[in-house]
């Protein structure tokens, strides 16, 4: 109980002293009795309510004090109070105009501090605080399956599993699965690629959306024999159908099928996925086609994510007798935000801490400035005090000045912050789900206002308290007052240096990490590599032979385009998504249970692929024209990681025989390993490797593929020629999703780079501010000690001694501060390592570099005022005094 009460007393300090003296005990007693009669210890909810209660009413009490001067008898009207306040503001403005350098310095410091906070908070607000744009968004959860044994955190959902979950769960109001795809459509005779979302008929219930026109598809359309129907997204209704209100009932041709349009979706539907069409899933739970679907559910009221997960696991595992694989797979439930934005949480947290530190340093500088100025204002304040101004009145005047400065600075900072965050958000917009919005809202403004007031209190209250504490102008010795002030300033400098040091370490580590990532060998040649998608409709390309024939002719035609060095066809190119298979090795020892069976990345490629994409071989050879032919042998190429995970028991992986699947059938189709390639960073430079294989296109002729072009020339010039060449072969085939590989590789690191760049930028600002603080405080301290230094010089002290003493004094503060900062960084290494991939959080290079950098810059900042002191003319100084 004592501990709780101490905590509450701490909160109560927010009240003005008068109110606390009168009612503090009453509030404490009430608190004690509230806690005592509660069942169980007070939880977070209780403390939040209590803190909010205290904060709100303490604030109101301060405002009352402010406007009435704290005297209940001075029952001023609101108008009179405003007049006094306005008078204070005008007086403050006059004071500040008279000292423009001082005022500008504070405004700039404040602007720097607020700008970073505004920019970063805008991003954090958009990502983590703003409610999702759906009804009752807290009930929405992401569904998925996990399979640790296959080394897959997210397996995606199999339709038959979903079908069981939906039927047997008791914790969900509704759930749906969906998949995204694209199809070739003909609109007004021109081939168009339309993107679509395929979903079960429950999706409108889950999202609680109603079509703007027509109706949503129902269960009768959502099975394999259902009518083919579609809803148009608002955008594609406007773009492709001119927003025609009579569009219902019209049909469009998609992949050769006639589809009836039964509705138009509202704009909110785009938040889930930015596609042209929504189609019913039309899946059959009896056909197990593996995994591949995303899921979204709406929890029943009062159900927690954990309860929902346990419920689904029970339902899922109950099917193990029928489907043995459910032993390996398990359902997982996450909040939507956690699933899609969880990766950004740590980085954003670091940025918030960084900007808070910058603001703190700026405040410390301003406070030091105000301390220094407080001394020069002593005569003015003493005079006003002698003329009858109350302590409270003087304190109020000083706080008003701080507030005027803080608000001006914050205004500038807000503008810079909004502009800066625009610059930041624009290139990153594609990295976030559609429902994330960075619009400025009330929460953002409240945050900036709160930060401003807090900062003003930090740097304004200290001098104000000191001013109001000075009862008379003539009491106390000036010397002790100034040495106390110097000590306080020394403390501020130490704190600034400590914060800046820690930030610099984090910035240095993340910069080093990103630089190292940029140098990671992707395992292929990204420069000059262009890729795009093409999809052959099954009506006109019925069998593998037709598709192969097209692929061969197409490849030859593409290679005739000037600027194209080579062309290849594959199921996917690097950064092109995951397609997991399992393989068994002929004669391999059985895998131990706990060893797991890591999923293998499967790629289907034509023989030209390795050369076009620039994948090197460690052993063996690429495919030749016989591999995979019906009269030839079945072949496969594996990567180095596959050799490590699956073929480690062999001396030579070449010649090993593999079969696809998890269980050997009676007549397995063996494939012979003909080559081993170097590892290709298929998932991005900052991601782990998985075992991977390549199979010849001849063995598995695809209908949808990526085309990779190795270019000599300008990609922009080649793309129109590619479209023309494609149209020559088949004028109904759209070329889509055209990407330059080097850009894609960079984009994959964009967020990481942006976070690192920002931390470096903020830590640089912190360094500059801290150094400016050192310079200012040492200058001030030297100025205060002019007389002492003058006497020492007159008594014969050598210039070097004075110089050395001043520098030593300053560097002691710096050493103390940076030691604290380094210790903090080492202690926080566990957290810091969360944002690093390839660099140790305790990498000594960074720590040494930061210490050297800070030491050098701080030494200069110390030396300049020290030199000025040493060059004093002792006679002049003493005459002045």
């Amino acid at each position, binding site marked *: 109980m004592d501990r709780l009460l101490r905590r509450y007393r701490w909160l109560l300090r927010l009240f003005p002293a008068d109110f606390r003296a*009168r009612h503090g005990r009453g509030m404490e007693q*009430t608190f004690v009795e509230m806690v005592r009669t509660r069942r169980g210890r007070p939880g977070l909810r209780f403390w939040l309510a209590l803190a909010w209660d205290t904060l709100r009413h303490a604030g109101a009490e301060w405002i009352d004090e402010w406007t009435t001067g704290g005297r209940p008898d001075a029952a001023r009207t609101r108008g009179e109070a405003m007049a006094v306040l306005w008078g204070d503001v005008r007086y403050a403005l006059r004071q500040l105009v008279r000292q423009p350098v001082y005022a500008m310095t504070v405004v700039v410091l404040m602007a720097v501090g607020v700008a970073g906070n505004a920019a970063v908070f805008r991003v954090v607000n958009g990502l983590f605080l703003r409610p999702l744009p759906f009804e009752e968004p807290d009930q929405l959860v992401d569904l998925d399956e996990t399979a640790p044994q296959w080394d897959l955190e997210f397996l995606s959902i199999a339709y038959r599993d979903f079908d069981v979950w939906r039927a047997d769960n008791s914790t969900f109001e509704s759930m749906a699965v969906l998949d995204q795809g694209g199809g070739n459509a003909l609109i007004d005779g021109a081939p168009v690629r339309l993107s679509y979302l395929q979903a079960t008929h429950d999706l409108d219930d889950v999202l609680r959306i109603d079509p703007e026109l027509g109706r949503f598809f129902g269960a009768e359309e959502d099975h394999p024999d259902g009518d083919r129907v579609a809803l148009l997204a608002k955008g594609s209704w406007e773009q492709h159908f001119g927003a025609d209100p009579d569009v219902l009932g019209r049909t469009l041709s998609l992949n050769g099928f006639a589809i009836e349009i039964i509705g138009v979706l509202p704009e909110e539907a785009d938040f889930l996925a930015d596609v042209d069409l929504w189609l019913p899933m039309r899946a059959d739970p009896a056909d197990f086609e593996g995994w591949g679907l995303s899921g979204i559910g709406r929890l029943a009221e009062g159900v927690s994510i954990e309860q929902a997960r346990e419920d689904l696991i029970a339902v899922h595992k109950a099917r193990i007798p029928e489907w043995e694989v459910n032993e390996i797979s398990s359902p997982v439930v996450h909040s939507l935000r956690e699933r899609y934005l969880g990766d950004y949480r740590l980085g954003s947290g670091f940025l918030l801490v960084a900007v808070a530190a910058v603001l703190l340093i700026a405040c410390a500088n301003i406070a030091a400035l105000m301390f220094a100025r407080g001394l020069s204002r002593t005569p003015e304040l003493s005079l006003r005090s002698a003329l009858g101004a109350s302590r409270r009145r003087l304190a109020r005047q000083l706080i008003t000045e701080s507030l005027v400065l803080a608000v001006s600075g914050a205004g500038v900072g807000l503008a810079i912050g909004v502009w800066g965050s625009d610059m930041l958000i624009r290139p990153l917009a594609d990295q976030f789900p559609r429902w994330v919005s960075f619009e400025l809202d009330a929460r953002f403004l409240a945050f900036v206002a709160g930060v401003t007031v807090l900062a003003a209190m930090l740097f304004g209250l200290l001098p104000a308290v000191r001013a109001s504490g000075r009862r008379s102008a003539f009491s106390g010795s000036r010397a002790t007052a100034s040495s106390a002030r110097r000590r306080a300033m020394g403390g501020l400098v130490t704190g600034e240096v400590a914060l800046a040091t820690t930030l610099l370490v984090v910035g240095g580590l993340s910069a080093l990490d990103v630089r190292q990532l940029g140098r990671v060998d992707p395992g292929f040649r990204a420069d000059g590599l262009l890729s795009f998608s093409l999809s052959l409709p099954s009506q006109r390309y019925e069998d593998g032979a037709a598709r192969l024939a097209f692929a061969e002719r197409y490849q030859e035609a593409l290679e005739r385009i000037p600027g194209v060095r080579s062309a290849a066809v594959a199921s996917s190119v690097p950064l092109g998504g995951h397609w997991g298979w399992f393989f068994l090795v002929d004669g391999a020892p059985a895998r131990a249970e706990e060893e797991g069976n890591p999923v293998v990345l499967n790629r289907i490629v034509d023989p030209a692929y390795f050369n076009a994409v620039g994948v090197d071989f460690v052993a063996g050879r690429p495919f030749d024209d016989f591999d995979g032919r019906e009269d030839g042998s079945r072949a496969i190429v594996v990567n180095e990681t596959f050799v490590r995970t699956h073929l480690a028991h062999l001396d030579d992986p070449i010649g090993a025989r593999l079969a696809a699947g998890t269980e050997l059938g009676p007549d397995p189709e063996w494939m012979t390993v003909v080559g081993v390639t170097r590892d290709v960073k298929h998932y991005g430079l900052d991601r782990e490797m998985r075992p991977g294989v390549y199979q010849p296109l001849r063995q598995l002729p695809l209908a949808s593929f990526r085309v990779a072009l190795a270019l000599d020339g300008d990609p922009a010039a080649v793309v129109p020629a590619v479209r023309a060449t494609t149209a020559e072969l088949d004028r109904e085939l759209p070329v889509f999703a055209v990407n330059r590989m080097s850009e894609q590789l960079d984009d994959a690191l964009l967020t990481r780079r942006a976070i690192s760049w920002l931390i470096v930028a903020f830590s640089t600002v912190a360094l500059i501010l801290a150094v400016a603080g050192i310079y200012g405080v040492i200058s001030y301290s030297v100025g205060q000690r002019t007389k002492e230094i003058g006497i020492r010089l007159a008594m014969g002290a050598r210039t070097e001694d004075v110089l050395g003493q001043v520098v030593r004094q300053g560097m002691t503060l710096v050493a103390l501060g940076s030691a604290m900062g380094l210790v903090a960084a080492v202690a926080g290494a566990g957290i810091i390592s969360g944002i690093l991939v390839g660099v140790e959080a305790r990498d000594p290079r960074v720590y040494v570099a930061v210490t050297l950098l800070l030491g050098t810059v701080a030494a200069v900042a110390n030396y300049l005022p020290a030199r000025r002191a040493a060059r004093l003319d002792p006679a002049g100084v003493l005459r002045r005094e």
Partner: protein
Amino acid sequence: MIPRPLKTQYFQILLALSRRDLHGYAIQRAVLDQTDDQLKLWPAMLYRSLAKLEEADLIAETEAPKDEPDDERRQYYRLTEAGRGRLRDEAEMLARWVRAVGEAEA
């Protein structure tokens, strides 16, 4: 002067004190009872309200009633004559409003 109509928390505090003299936490409980747990006066809100009411001479600090255990940490409050009058005025005004709604619906 506290403007009329009284804020809900002021009215409820006056109402609670009209039955008997109470200390801070007891006022909180009484108001919870009166409002079917709708209004919880957290300490800061409670004491700021008490301060305002005391300033306006509607309530005053008082001794602990004889039938309660003497706990010096508790601050007791009683309704002043002005407070009683104000509560009555306020209640009549509310009653008039309630009647007006009844007539409008009839």
